[in-house]
C-alpha cells in the first residue's frame, strides 16, 4: 500500500510542475465554457418550452465540467502508458514487485487529480461571481453537496477504470490509435461530454442511464444542481459503485490474461 501512495505522490507532484500550461488551459476552458453557455442560451430562447434542465442548472453543469475537465475527460489518456506498451518497456514494469493494474490505476488517478487541482480553482471562483443565470450556483442542499463529493470520487474511479480497459486493449493490438480514438470518443459522447445527457432524446437516455458512461461526469454534475431528485440520486450513486466494481474486475481479469501471453516487441 505504501508503495502505491508514494507512486501517487510522485505523479501528483510531477503533474503540478506544469503551471504555464495550466494557465493556458484555464483560458481555453473559460472560452469554451462561455461558448457553450451562449450556444445553449440561443437554443433555449428559440424554444422556451419545457426543457428537462433549467438554464441555471445547465450553467452549473457546464462550469463544473470545464473546471474538472482533467478529471473526467476520457480522451485525457496517459500517453506514457501507451508508449510503455508499444515500445516494450512494459517489461521493466513487470519486473517490479507490484501489481501492474493497481500501479497504473494510481498513476492515472494522480495524473488526473494533479491537473485538475491546478486548473479547477480559478475557474470555480470566477464562475461563482458571474451574473445570474450564467453563474455556477450553490449546491442544491447540503445533503446533495455530500452526495456530490462522494459521487465525484466514484465517477473518477469509473473513468480511470474505463481508461485502464483502453490501455489493456493496446496489449491485444499493436497499432492502437484507431481503436483508442473510437473507444474514447464513444465514451465522451455517451457520458455527456459533448452535450449534457438530459438534452439527448429521451428514448436514448433511458438506456444510457444504466450504462457505465452515465456513471461518469453525468451523475455528480447533475446531483450538484439538484437536477437528479433525491431518491434517484441515491440510486445513481449505487449504480456508480456497481460499475466501478465491475469495470475494475473486468480490467484486472483482462490484464492478467494479457500478461500471460504478452509478447514484448523490439529490443
Amino acid at each position: 500500500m505504501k508503495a502505491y501512495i508514494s507512486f501517487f505522490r510522485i505523479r501528483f507532484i510531477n503533474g503540478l510542475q506544469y503551471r504555464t500550461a495550466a494557465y493556458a488551459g484555464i483560458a481555453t476552458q473559460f472560452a469554451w465554457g462561455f461558448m457553450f453557455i451562449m450556444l445553449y442560451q440561443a437554443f433555449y430562447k428559440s424554444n422556451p418550452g419545457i426543457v428537462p434542465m433549467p438554464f441555471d442548472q445547465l450553467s452549473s453543469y457546464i462550469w463544473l465540467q470545464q473546471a474538472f475537465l482533467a478529471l473526467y475527460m476520457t480522451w485525457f489518456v496517459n500517453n506514457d502508458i501507451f508508449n510503455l506498451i508499444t515500445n516494450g518497456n512494459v517489461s521493466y514494469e513487470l519486473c517490479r514487485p507490484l501489481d501492474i493494474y493497481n500501479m497504473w490505476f494510481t498513476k492515472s488517478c494522480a495524473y488526473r487529480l494533479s491537473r485538475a487541482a491546478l486548473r479547477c480553482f480559478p475557474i470555480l471562483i470566477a464562475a461563482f461571481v458571474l451574473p445570474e443565470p450564467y453563474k455556477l450556483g450553490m449546491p442544491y442542499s447540503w445533503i446533495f453537496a455530500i452526495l456530490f463529493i462522494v459521487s465525484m470520487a466514484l465517477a473518477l474511479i469509473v473513468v480511470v477504470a474505463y481508461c485502464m480497459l483502453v490501455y489493456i486493449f493496446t496489449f491485444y493490438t499493436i497499432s492502437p490509435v484507431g481503436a483508442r480514438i473510437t473507444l474514447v470518443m464513444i465514451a465522451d459522447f455517451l457520458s455527456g461530454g459533448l452535450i449534457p445527457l438530459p438534452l439527448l432524446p429521451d428514448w436514448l437516455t433511458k438506456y444510457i442511464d444504466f450504462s457505465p458512461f452515465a456513471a461518469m461526469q453525468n451523475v455528480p454534475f447533475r446531483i450538484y444542481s439538484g437536477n437528479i431528485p433525491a431518491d434517484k440520486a441515491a440510486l445513481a450513486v449505487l449504480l456508480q459503485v456497481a460499475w466501478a466494481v465491475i469495470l475494475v474486475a473486468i480490467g484486472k481479469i483482462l490484464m492478467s490474461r494479457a500478461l500471460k501471453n504478452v509478447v514484448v516487441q523490439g529490443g
Partner: protein
Amino acid sequence: MKLYFKYFSIHLRSVMQYKTSFFLTSIGTGLTTFFSFLSMYFLFDRFGSIKGYTFNEVLLCFSTIFMSFAIAECFGRGFDTFSGIISNGEFDRIMVRPRNEILQIVGSRIEFTRIGRLIQAFIVLIYAISSSRVYWSIDKVVTLLLMIVGGICLFFGLFMIYAAICFFTLEGLEFMNIFTDGGRELAQYPLDIYKDWVIKFFTFVVPIAFINYYPFLYIIGKNKGYGLFYMLSPVISMLFLIPSYILWRIGVRHYKSTGS
C-alpha cells in the same frame, strides 16, 4: 511546387505502408466529426430551430467549416509541430537550404488521416445542399466554393501565426486553440446566435464571420441588399494570409538558434 508534390508523394507512400493502421486512424478521427454532427442533430431534435435557422440550413455552416478545417489541418500540420522544429535546432537546417522555409515546413508533415473527417463533412455537405431548399444558382455555388476555400486560407493563416509565435516563445501556446478549434466549434452555427461581441470579434480580429456568417446569409437569402459584398466576403478571409505571412517574416528575422 514541384518540390511540394515530391513531399506529397513521399508522405503518401509512407502512409500506405501501414494501410490498416491508416484506415483505422482515419475512421477514428472521422468519429469526432460524426459525434459533433450527432450532438447537433439531437439538439435540433429537442429544440426545433435556433434563432430562426433550421437544421438543414445550419448544416451548411457545419459542413463547410469542417471541410475547410480538415483540409487546412491536413496540409498545415507542419506548423502545429513547429515548436519541436525550433527547439531541436531543425530550423537551422531548413534555413540553409536554398528553398522557401514555409514550403519545407509544410512539406515536413502531411496528415492524410484527416481524410476521414473530410469525407464525412463532404457527405453532410451533399445532404445539406440537397435538403436545404435553396435554389442553387451559379452565384450561390460560387459562394459556397468561396466559403470553403476562404476557410482553408483562414485556418492555414491561423496555423502560420501559431508557428510564428513560437519564434518568440519557443513553445506552442495552447491558447491559440481558442481561435482554431474554438473558431471551428463556434462557426458550426451561424455566428449571430451568439452575443453581439462575438460576431464583432470574429469580423474584425479573426475574420471567421466572412467564411461562415455573411456568405451563409447570402446563400439562404437572408442578406439585406449588398448581394455582391455578401457573396464575395470570403475573399476578405483569404487576405488574412497577408498579415499572417508578415508576422511569420518578422518571426524569421527574430529567430535565434536554440539547442543542438
